[in-house]
């Protein structure tokens, strides 16, 4: 579904992505894992077209994303830190997104209901807490029923109840045949969600394995421990 070929990206001297190639297929929930600054967010932003790679190509359903900007209709993106115009209310942001996407039917409002966003519609984005902004971002990512969900640190600011609701939603969407790309440092959150792991370090893709393979290779049952083992062996 999404194919990355030899993606490289520099920010000044820093090599954010170094020759990354991989393929992501539908019905998978793929976790992007790696230490801070290993290029996870840059990789996600390249897929979204927010960062333009120096070299390499990204295809989405066989089309190069550089020439087919419409592919973003199929992507729901939840940023690490959602930033919205301060003087717009939640209601206005939701309306504007519907307006821009030109979609007002067949919307998936499960998360809006689950997070009871409706009661906050008149609040200005500038006055919201970090957690509430995360809820709005999450609701927006799922709203248009996209076939790919890209979630950057989704559970970081959410309270435990919201976080559980959110995980249930991700599972449901994965089982519907969607591709979910997720980055997180809270590995315990990922344990029962993900089916594959991409491990990155210093901009390089170290491995891309299914979770069973990882368990076999490391001999650990839980994701937290197996990743910890990988990280320690790669740490330096």
């Amino acid at each position, binding site marked *: 579904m999404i194919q990355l070929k030899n993606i490289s990206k520099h920010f000044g001297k820093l090599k954010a992505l170094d020759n990354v190639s991989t393929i992501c297929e539908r019905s998978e929930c793929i976790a992007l894992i790696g230490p801070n600054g290993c290029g996870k967010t840059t990789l996600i932003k390249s897929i979204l077209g*927010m*960062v333009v790679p120096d070299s390499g190509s990204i295809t989405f359903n066989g089309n190069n994303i550089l020439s087919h*900007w419409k592919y973003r209709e199929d992507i729901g*993106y939840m940023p690490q830190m959602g*930033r919205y*115009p*301060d003087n717009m209310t939640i209601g206005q942001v939701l309306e504007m997104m519907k307006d*821009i996407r030109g979609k007002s039917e067949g919307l998936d409002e499960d998360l809006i209901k689950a997070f009871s966003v409706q009661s906050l519609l008149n609040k200005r984005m500038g006055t919201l807490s970090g957690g509430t902004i995360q809820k709005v971002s999450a609701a927006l990512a799922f709203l248009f029923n996209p076939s790919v969900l890209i979630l950057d640190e989704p559970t970081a600011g959410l309270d435990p109840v919201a976080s559980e609701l959110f995980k249930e939603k991700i599972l449901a969407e994965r089982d519907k045949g969607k591709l979910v790309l997720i980055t997180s440092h809270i590995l315990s959150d990922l344990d029962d969600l993900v089916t594959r792991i991409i491990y990155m370090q210093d901009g390089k893709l170290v491995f891309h394995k299914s979770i069973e393979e990882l368990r076999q290779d490391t001999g650990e049952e839980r994701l937290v421990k197996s990743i910890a083992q990988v990280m320690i062996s790669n740490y330096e």
Partner: protein
Amino acid sequence: MNKIIKYVITDILRNRIVLIYTVFLLAASFSVFSLEDNSSKGLLSLLNIILIVVPLVSIIFSTIYMYNSAEFIELLVSQPLKRNTIWLSLFTGLASSLSIAFLIGAGIPVLIYQANLVGFTMIMTGVLLSIIFAAISFLATVQTRDKAKGIGAAIMLWLYFSLLFDGLILFLLFQFADYPMENAMIALSALNPIDLSRILILLQLDVSAMMGYTGAVFKEFFGANNGLIFSFFVLLSWIVIPVWYSTRKFNSKDL
């Protein structure tokens, strides 16, 4: 595209600064016209106010607005929209709201007191200046992520166009006083949209004392009509070139 333009315009027209700008222009133009007994004299005084204020407000306001919309732009880029569309819509929205503010603030009084060709040219140059300086501010914002740097650059650009440029011209004139400078002056004046706007209006007013060196050379070289057409096209390219360049830059910018 229209949707984004609509959001930008409604957002800006509610902005208090734009409101104050409009009211200031209204107050300035009405007082200037009622102070002078001859309304074409009033037009001249208004010209000097417009040539200073319009570029200043346009460039500073646009720059700050673009930096404050960084989040909004980021949000839009992750949506199924072309980057060209986003950038050009932002520009169109910003330029048209500044033009609307100018049309209300200065356009109405000019039409009341001087509804003739000169008044009309004046309104047109004011609108062009608003658009040109919005375009120049887009150059500044696309170049740097740093808000302080960007606004500093915008202020420097304004200083250059409205003050430093004249000084440079004078300096060149004195340095090369022994050589024929007329044609070179025309080329040089094309480098400054404010100077060009002044010439554009003064060519019609026929007040040689106000024309300055470049204006006189202009009249000599082109005659009034050709000079008008020439300066109009140069002003247009002052819009097209910055917008084209900043769009190109924005297309490959990392957000």
